[in-house]
């Protein structure tokens, strides 16, 4: 017959009214989780390609030697293009 088990003294103490709550992730990570999930469930390869293209073009722009004002304009255009087109590569938000 198996002896009845006793609570071991080195076990963590649980609150008598319910299980202890594990500390959640930091707020920054919690806020980023949905965005990461949308990237993971969307088209991450295509998004990465888009980002890479944007970065290469931005790098070419800054190294073209055209001056800061035209470069700022072109980079703004690139950022706008990325913001508009990258949405399609993300999965829809939960419940939508």
């Amino acid at each position, binding site marked *: 017959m198996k002896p009845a088990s006793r609570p071991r003294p080195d076990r963590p103490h649980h609150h008598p009214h319910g299980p202890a709550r594990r500390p959640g992730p930091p707020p920054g990570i919690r806020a980023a989780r*949905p965005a990461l*999930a*949308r990237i993971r*469930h*969307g*088209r991450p390869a295509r998004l990465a390609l888009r980002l890479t293209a944007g970065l290469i073009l931005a790098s*070419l*722009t800054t190294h*073209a*030697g*055209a*001056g*800061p*004002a*035209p*470069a*700022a*304009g*072109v*980079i*703004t*255009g690139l950022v*706008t293009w990325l913001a*508009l087109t990258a*949405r*399609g*590569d*993300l*999965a*829809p*938000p*939960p*419940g*939508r």
Partner: protein
Amino acid sequence: MIGFLVQLMILRWAARWAARLAAWTLTVIVAIAAAPVTVVAVTAVAGAWLRGWPPARLRRAAAWSAPMTAAYLLARAISARSVQAVAAAPYRDWLAGWHAFSLGATARAFVLCGPAAVPAGLLAASWAWAIRIYRIETGLSGQTATAPVIFDARQWRRQARTAQARNTAPGTVPLTDRRGRIVIGATIRAIGHPWRPVLAIPAAAMARHQVIIGSSGSGKTNLMIRTWAGWYTAARHAATRGAPRPLLVVLDCKGGPDARAKAQRTRVLLHAAGAATVAVWPDDASVSLWTLPPRDLAVTLFQLLDTADAGPAAYYADITQAALMLAVTAPPGPPPGVASFLERLDHGWLESAYAGDWPRLSAVRATTRHLPDIALRYRTLLDRLGPGFDGTATLANADAWYLILEGTSQPSVAQAQALAVTELLAHAATSRDTEPRAILLACDDYSAVSSKVPLWQLYERGRSLGIGVQVSAQSWHGLGASDDERYRIAATADGGIFLMRTPHPEPVSQLAGTRQVIETATKVIAGGWGDEGSSRVQHAWTADPGTARRLATGQAGYIHAGGCTWVQIARPRPSPIPVPAAPPVPGPAVPIIIIPPSHDRDGDRAAGPGRGRAARPEAMKEPA
């Protein structure tokens, strides 16, 4: 005299060609001088031609590229701190760009000119593309007389291909957009409506009436499931802001194995959209007919029977109605189930129930002779209806109901069931004891069961009860028994009409109306265009019936407010990210629905803490 006339003609011809030549030369000079703008414009027009974009698409692109000009001018203003320098900056950079280009530094030339050239080029392209389309469509341009037809067919193919590609992007076609509108799919072509890349209709359109017409294999099921899930999502979001909770009731009036597959797809999608309980009737859920108010129950039970309302048979109909009223409104209260109801159709039971109530007792005695026949008829009828109406739940106890009526294999039973369901729904909409709900009744192929409750009646009843009604039919003729009835249904579809591939779309096209177009006739001389011609204003279909006949699977025309948007319907897919668990809604803990655990397994990769069995309260189990 003849020589003078000939000279005059030659002079006129020469002057005309000289003017043309001057105009072309000037255009070429301007195009070369503004080479960066020209390059952008030519590229954009070529892209629009190849992708089937409308000019509006280029205008939107021009508007979205305006921030780059703004950032460029702002940066110049910060560095120069002078209005004159900022105003002169595009010109100076244009000159610098030419200089860089001549030195072979193309990238630098583009960066210098880009912030001003891109929006200007896109705007110029939209203008040039609109003129090109106008000239082709009106017959003012083109190599042959068939040019407008060839151009239109080619552009349709390209527009459809682009729309299909857009639908593959997961973030472009969610069930609802950020403004809570129901997303249908990527736009192919918009006539009389403002062009948007994706067609999204307000959720309020579903709260009114909507008609879907499409033959078998046209993609009607996809469209319907998408609109249901979209409506549920939008209504659920509205409910978090204090609006009534949604209740979706789908009547699949054909039945059969297809209906089961469709129900399963709908269930998975609705669970992903946040619906906790999706009941499929009668396969794994039942509803109680006996929760209707006693008088309504008596009337409904009477209507379920096929009775004559004229001639000698009307006498028996009246006797039946009287007996039903006595049995259902008897002092102990309405019957709680089939067995109790049939037990009451007995003179002994009725006499003891109405003991002391002399007027009703005499009525009981008058019906005594017919009671066994009436009981027999109802025993047979309720047996045929099956156990689906003998449960304990009401329609309000679930978030969505998918009711399968076997309209193809058992039309008379399905018709009676449809009648009972509409009564239950009316009760759910008007009951003061339950919480108010935003209700959508979707009827797929309703014509299969419409003999007891005609569709127009359902429409008018839905309107008066505040229920949105969506109706689908395989053809125009499936909408109603007569043209009068069909027009009554289609003309009152305030939520719009979805026209899919169908062989007889003319009545719907007529409802969409016409638009004014310019038609040009040009004289042809010896195989070439002559100098003479005429243009006139003509009326053309807004929703062209020829286009509707040729639609591919999954294409539809959304007709609303005198316009038509042709759309490629996106296959409804749930968001793969789990919905956060909703707080429990206080309400009566009524035992409700049988949902076997296996149903959430199939394909529901979105199953999460807020959906499926995990989210279902413990009360949602059928009592033993």
